[in-house]
């Protein structure tokens, strides 16, 4: 996030001892240290699953016993619908692919789609939201109507249309991933747009923005220096929640047959689709494992997102209980539950609150 590096030069002169280290100010690391109890458990579980998913995706060529489109090994053809065991730990599919390899390679496709989809939608959504919220007027009205219209569309239908427009429905790895990612992007841009626009409208009325306007700062300067950085603090949260949705949309597309060809890349939704007929004939392994992969990854990312969401809100954040008479009398006023606004460093800033140095007689607020 941009806030880390932009804090650098000033923090250096501000008596580094008082500030927590840079590492502990990093988004996820910070929340991990902050959390307690069940919330920490959820966050850790989510992080472990997500890390596993990302590692699997990166090292798929090393981990997977076979290629995603491999039909024959050293000792001939794999054979279709082989039960788990032997050289195929999780069996083979009706098309004769190794299930384990397909599941592992599938994580790579999923990660590609998440990265591309989120990258595409985050920039467009943030930019549009910022401009729309800051300037308002007819541009704002048009954009809001368009986004509402996109919302009103069934997202999967929209994704299908996009996928047909982009690649005629089916294609190779790059085309398939792009088709899926762009169709997801279309659905996600309104989400980022809305969040950033709402934040921008709120921040626009804050005294520090008005103060910049009184100074005569240009619109560009106000937007980039004052509004943007304050508006983006909820992004990590939508980012994680959207990632899980991206996987579901990709799987949905694949399941409906608009996914990626098995020869181009492994895709869980596609495998599920092909295993439909297997279920009735008692062949469970072809559908169970890709399905499990989808559920696990979505759950892992959602856990991270939801915990970040809870930790970002002081009213939901769990804390260690205090003893009946513990603690020093605060020099500061106590807002039960802490402040709702993030401090410097976005979410991280919430941590550095008290220990206000006071001048002699002035009572703090």
């Amino acid at each position, binding site marked *: 996030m941009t806030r880390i590096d932009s804090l650098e030069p000033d923090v250096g002169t501000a008596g580094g001892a008082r500030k927590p280290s840079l590492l502990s100010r990093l988004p996820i690391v910070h929340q991990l240290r902050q959390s307690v109890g069940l919330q920490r458990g959820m966050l850790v579980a989510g992080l472990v699953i997500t890390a596993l998913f990302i590692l699997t995706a990166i090292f798929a060529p090393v981990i997977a016993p076979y290629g995603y489109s491999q039909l024959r090994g050293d000792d001939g053809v794999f054979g279709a619908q082989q039960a788990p065991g032997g050289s195929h730990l999780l069996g083979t599919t009706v098309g004769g692919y190794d299930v384990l390899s397909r599941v592992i390679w599938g994580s790579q496709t999923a990660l590609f789609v998440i990265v591309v989809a989120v990258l595409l939608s985050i920039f467009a959504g943030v930019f549009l939201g910022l401009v729309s919220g800051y300037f308002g007027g007819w541009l704002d009205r048009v954009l809001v109507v368009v986004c509402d219209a996109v919302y009103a569309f069934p997202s999967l239908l929209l994704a299908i249309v996009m996928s047909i427009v982009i690649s005629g429905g089916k294609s190779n790895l790059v085309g398939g991933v792009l088709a899926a990612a762009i169709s997801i992007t279309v659905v996600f841009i309104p989400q980022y747009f809305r969040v950033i626009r709402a934040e921008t409208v709120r921040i626009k009325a804050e005294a520090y923005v008005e103060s910049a306007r*009184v100074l005569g700062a240009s619109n560009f300067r106000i937007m980039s220096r004052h509004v943007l950085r304050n508006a983006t603090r909820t992004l990590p949260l939508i980012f994680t929640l959207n990632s899980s949705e991206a996987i579901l949309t990709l799987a949905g597309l694949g399941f409906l047959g608009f996914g990626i060809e098995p020869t181009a890349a492994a895709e869980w939704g596609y495998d599920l689709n092909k295993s439909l007929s297997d279920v009735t004939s008692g062949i469970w392994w072809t559908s169970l494992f890709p399905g499990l992969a989808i559920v696990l990854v979505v759950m892992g990312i959602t856990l991270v997102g939801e915990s970040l969401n809870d930790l970002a809100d002081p009213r939901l954040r769990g804390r260690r209980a205090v003893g009946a008479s513990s603690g020093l009398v605060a020099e500061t006023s106590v807002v039960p539950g802490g402040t709702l606004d993030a401090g410097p460093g976005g979410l991280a800033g919430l941590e550095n609150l008290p220990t206000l140095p006071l001048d002699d007689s002035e009572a703090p607020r």
Partner: protein
Amino acid sequence: MTETHDSPAEQQTVLRIDDLGVSFSTDAGAVRAVDGVSLSVRRGEVLAIVGESGSGKTVTAKTILGLLPETAMAQGAVILSSRDGQSSNNVIALSKQRLRQVRGTDVSMVFQEPGTALNPVYTVGWQIMEGIRAHGTVNRADARAKAIEILGRVGIPDPEVRINYYPHQFSGGQKQRVVIAMALVLEPGLIVADEPTTALDVTVQAEILDLLRRCRDEFGTAIVLITHNMGVVADLADRVAVMYQGKVVEEADASTLFNSPQNPYTQRLLAAVPYVGQGVVRAAARAEARTPEWSAQAPVVVADKLRIQYPGRLGRPGFIAVDGVSFSIRPGEVLGLVGESGSGKTTIGRAIAGLTRVTDGSLRVLGHEMNGFRERKFKHLRSDIGFVFQDPASSFNPLLTIADCVAEPLIVHGRASSPRAARARVDELLEAVQLPRAFGDRFPHELSGGQRQRASLARALALEPKLLIADEPTSALDVSVQARVLELFADLQRELGFAALFISHDLAVVDILADRIAVLYHGSLVEEGTGAQVLGAPQDPYTQRLLASLPVPDPAAQALRREDLAKLRAAG
């Protein structure tokens, strides 16, 4: 926990707090908000708990009703007796169910913000009856009759009709009356009023204080009054407890406390309270020092029949915030603009800074006509205008250090290329507002409200403006902090000689600083003149009422003023 008491002395005490301590669990670890507080309230007595923000007064009040959040831990005892003195309970140890029974019948609460204490989707009658029916089986008709009666007794006209009104159909003061009616309806022995008049205008405040006094006299209800306003205390309280950093530092009956405060903190607190008449000498001295040529100088701001209208919804007329106001500010002069909420004082300040458009009439700022405002043409004049905002919490970008924020005007107007290059000037400015240089490296949330407001002043003065607009710069501050900020403002104004528009709702605050005072009422200027003229011998009936409504921190003087106000009201 229920026990009976027979001794008359015990029956007299409605509330006894013994060695109360409350700790909060926060992100930074445990924080003690209340530390060893012991208090007692007798029947029909008003105990005021006074203190500045963070003193623990509100937490103490919430403990009485068992309203502490889950993050809090309380110890000690809060013994609450019922009205008939038959039973008493330790609120801290009560179960949730018993607590619900006690609330409303033994103790009830009046909140600070009447607008949010009432549910907008129910009629006020429904909300009062809800309280009645939650405690015992009363049929609908009886509950309604009771609700009508109580509304009448708190001074709502036509209670039979008004009972079916929704909260938005009442004014702010009437809403607070309804809230008080809800608190009184079950005739509790004790009412906890947490800043009951802070959100109200000063003329309305006087009426609500009258009503609370009647609660004590007619209903025999004891009141715990939580406030930071010494004038309110002097007006209403029988006994006063002063809290500081979670402890009660002084407790005495009202006249003793105001006449001979013992604790040094109390003395400082009382000394910091601004009062009308403080600035007359200073203003006269400054008027004396002015040369005859001064009045011939071109004014910095001239408003002529200024009219500002906010656009209405489709098909509805807009809201006229400012209607035909004329005034002028000469170089080096401080004009105090006083008015209650909705009087248009902030709108005028914003119009001068080019934040709000002028609808009609003329407003000339530094020779530039603001009617038909174009940002591009006005931009070069912006370096001559400084603005100090009301809320110290939001007037700084939370992601920038104080030095960066103060350097902002220097960079925008090309006086410095980067925050680093501007640092020398920033340090100078910080010193001018009596902040240590090292504070430049801090983030806004690491400063207290008063420190932030001083940094805000430094930012406004960075370009040495000819005109400074201060919109309620001290209204969010504690009284002792306010005193220091006002003093600093006066010093800087004397040194730098800028002209200023000082906007405030508080006559006493304006009086300290202003050369001339303008009083706004419903968008029009009702009176303008020097402090001595406006405050010494007000001509307009509204100004007279405003002045008489302002409570002074002296119980004896306040009692006299109360009578004057009653006469004024009767006459008007």
